[in-house]
């Protein structure tokens, strides 16, 4: 039997290196990858949802339930389409006069100076924009399905600060659509908003026929 040369012999060094490579890859994949994949964009100014949703602090926003209060600003138009993030005209329904702000916050002051006085629309980043190939009807879910906003959008309405908008550098979509739980393992319904998540809920609620292709991809 020939002896195996030293330089070809398997050694414990190899397995250590295996471990190093393995752990390094885990770090790259779980820590570095998400950091690098998403770009950070703070919203142009802060909006305090918690404040506006509290009927004791703010009286103008009507609605008996939480969902109704959300719908006051994120409203349905008369033809049933969803207006999404409200335009400046919604804010100025109450904050109409730049010289008499309704509160004492510096954010409101900035809002009045920068936007209300010039009539410029606030360039909000939208957290939940879906691809153009998807037809999603808010009214079917909110009015017909009687769903609450927070079922899909989480506790967004109770936040004092608007989260930083994180955008996937490759796809251009918001991190809210997939990436916060990058493993894809969901704890809440709002952790991911891709096609399978919609399909999963349809199945659970007994509307499996809504998973046909043409329902959403018209």
């Amino acid at each position, binding site marked *: 039997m020939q002896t195996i040369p030293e330089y070809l012999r398997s*050694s414990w*060094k190899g*397995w250590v290196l*295996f*471990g190093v490579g*393995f752990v390094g890859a885990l770090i790259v*994949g779980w820590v570095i990858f998400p950091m690098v994949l998403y770009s950070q964009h703070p919203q142009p100014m802060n909006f305090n949802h918690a404040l506006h949703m509290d009927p004791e602090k703010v009286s103008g926003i009507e609605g008996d339930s939480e969902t109704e209060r959300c719908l006051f600003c994120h409203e349905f138009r008369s033809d049933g389409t969803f207006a999404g993030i409200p335009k400046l005209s919604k804010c100025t329904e109450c904050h109409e006069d730049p010289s008499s702000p309704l509160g004492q916050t510096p954010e409101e002051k900035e809002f009045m100076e920068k936007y209300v006085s010039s009539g410029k629309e606030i360039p909000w980043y939208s957290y939940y924009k879906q691809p153009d190939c998807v037809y999603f009807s808010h009214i079917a879910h909110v009015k017909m399905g009687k769903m609450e906003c927070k079922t899909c959008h989480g506790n967004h309405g109770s936040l004092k600060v608007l989260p930083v908008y994180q955008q996937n550098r*490759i796809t251009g979509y918001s991190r809210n659509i997939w990436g916060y739980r990058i493993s894809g393992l969901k704890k809440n319904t709002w952790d991911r908003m891709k096609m399978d998540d919609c399909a999963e809920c349809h199945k659970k609620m007994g509307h499996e026929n809504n998973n046909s292709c043409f329902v959403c991809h018209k």
Partner: protein
Amino acid sequence: MEINRRDFIKFVVGGIAGIHVTPLPWKLTDDIAIWTQNWPWVPVPGRGEFKEAKSICTLCPGGCGIRLRLVEKRGVKIESRDEFPVNHGGICPIGMGGLQLMYDKDLRFTSPMKRAGQRGEGIFVDISWDEAYSILVQRLKELREKKDPRLLAAVDGLPYEGSESLMVRRFMQAFGSNSYFRLPDQDLVDRTVNWIMHGIKGSMGFDLENSDYILSFGAGLLEGWGIPGRILNLWGEWKARGDGAKVKVVQIESRASNTASKADRWIAIKPGTEAALALGIVRELIQRGRYNVDFVNEHTFGFGDWVDQEGKSHKGFRSMVMEAYTPEKVAQITGIDPKEIKVIATELESAKAPVAIWGRGRGELPNGVYESMAIHSINIVLGRIQRPGGVIVSKEVLLGDLGPVLTDEKAKEALRQGTLVPAGIAEVSHLADLVKAILDSKEPVVDTLLLFQANPWITMPSSILLEKALKKVPFIVSFSPFRDDTSCYADLILPDHAYLEKFQEMVNPKGLGYAAYCISAPVLPNPYSTKALGDILIQLAGKLGGAIKESFPFKSYEEVLKQRTNSLFSAKRGSIKVQKEPPWKWVEIKDSGIQGDDKKDWETLLKSNIWYQPNTKESAYIVFPTESKKVELMSLSLKRFRDAVGAKTDEDLMPQYRGLETEKAGLLFMPYEMVNWSSGWAPSPPYLTKTIFDHILLKQDLFMELNPTTAKELGLREGEMVEVKSKLGVLQLKVHLSEVAMPGVAYAPLGFGRIGYDEFLKSKGVNVARILTSQKDPIVGTPLWWGTRVTINRV
């Protein structure tokens, strides 16, 4: 520490194993796929609030009601309108793709242009409106002062009864030119038939909404015949009715088109022999005595033998048909079993509201006048004129005229001299007359040619001759909004707005069964430097000055329309509001919406987009303004033009079958049309190229359909490239074997092989119209094209 190769590999493997247990490879793959969906150069409609605008579509003479969805003043979708009487919810593929025609810059002339390449290359440079006007005005002034104003010729493809066409004719008259030419199309033929047989100068319509049996002689109901939006929708309605009320469609054509395939019965007839079959059917009805005797006796002239004022006896229609169209003779001509004639006659008898229609394919290429008369005579002997479900021959739209045309001495002098090109009968000449005159006459017959909404290069049979003629014309001006094929031969472009950017109107939409006038204001802003055609004519007239300027005392095209519609309002007929009862119910209008205030009525009209007058019981009692005051089965009008039409005998004044003289050798070569491809003046929306099957067009090659038995005889195989040669020219086509084709006949689709437009439409396939040989229709001289014989050789 020394690391050998094995250790290094273990490190790499460790990394790879580790990476798979992280989200990285899975998320990255998914993200890259999504990245490909969002490339910035893929066009996507803008997001935002939708606005809706109502309009009509005038890409064909249909005038279908459409709804436009807009986001921030940009159209994003065209849909049909359910409530609009003309199309009641239907729309055709070309109409749906209309936005592509608006926004594709490569399809349009975006500003006035001057030719920079050779004729036919379509290379132009932008110039300003001032320069464009000054070039044209200078040339026209010179023409008037130094040469003959009749050397200005206009080829007008605009709908004849429309205001734009009226203004073109007005301009020509004020200028002093009678060189006005229509396109030699089916519309011209049908108007001639209406005039010859009923004495009416106008278009005919079919009350198909009420028919229960449709005998179609080649009319491509599913190929885009009539108003495609209306017919496609109607077909669905016909088939949806309950078993007792189902409408039966019998399609008579040589090829198994979509219409033939979906009809209740398909009768494969030898191409070009439809008139013989029609008269054979009439003979059968007469022989059985099962025709509408009352109608024929009271309202027709020339049915029985008659004696004229000089005591001379004349053979009537009945005698002629009984002699000449026996079942045996018809079978010999058409190839159809005589039993079939009996079956059709029985079906016609028992139907409550039968109608015979004609117009090969889309009904744009002209039929012969005699053959249209022959098919229509079925309607006449059955008394289906001005009846529900039948043919409507009188559709009056009482739009006002624009006042007298002022002509100066020069114009009067020129017009007194007659036409440079021999005029046709019924005073309308067409492009085939002009082409012949240009090619044959030694003296110049045209100096400057104006093209209005006409693209004959692509559809005029024997268009290779048109090309030769265009090359001889010294100066060509096109007003087309689109970079069409014929405009590639122009020297100067003064571009019109595209349809949704200007006031549109459609007088008597093609083949509609009641009088209607569709109109809409512009719904899209114009992003380019084009002008509405009506405004261009007014400005041009203004710059020419004198009597021409005075003949156009209008500030804008909108003013012209307002002026014309005022007469419509004051006539107090019809309705400018869409009534609850659809117009084909033959009920009186209760509330017309006409208030008698021109301003208010104009606004109401622009909101509803339509004026219409449904037929009523009274419609059956019209006086036919012919010489005999009846429907003429033997035409006294033709008698007046005996020499011009070469009518020597009495038979020559009656509907008849006249075969085309073709060579004995070679295959018959027939073009066909498709509902999802334009062969008219409007371009196909390029996205429709995706709907063309690979056995029709594959990359750049166009296919010709041959029956497998014919192909076997010629030794040709599927997919082979062949040379198809007619007397006029050669084309290269690929062979497609299909049972759809009649043995002995080759078919190829129209509308391909374009030289204009953009990369998606250009050079795909070949233009079949080029090699079609044509003979002159004996009555109007339109090109009769179904006798082309070709030889086929392998390449």
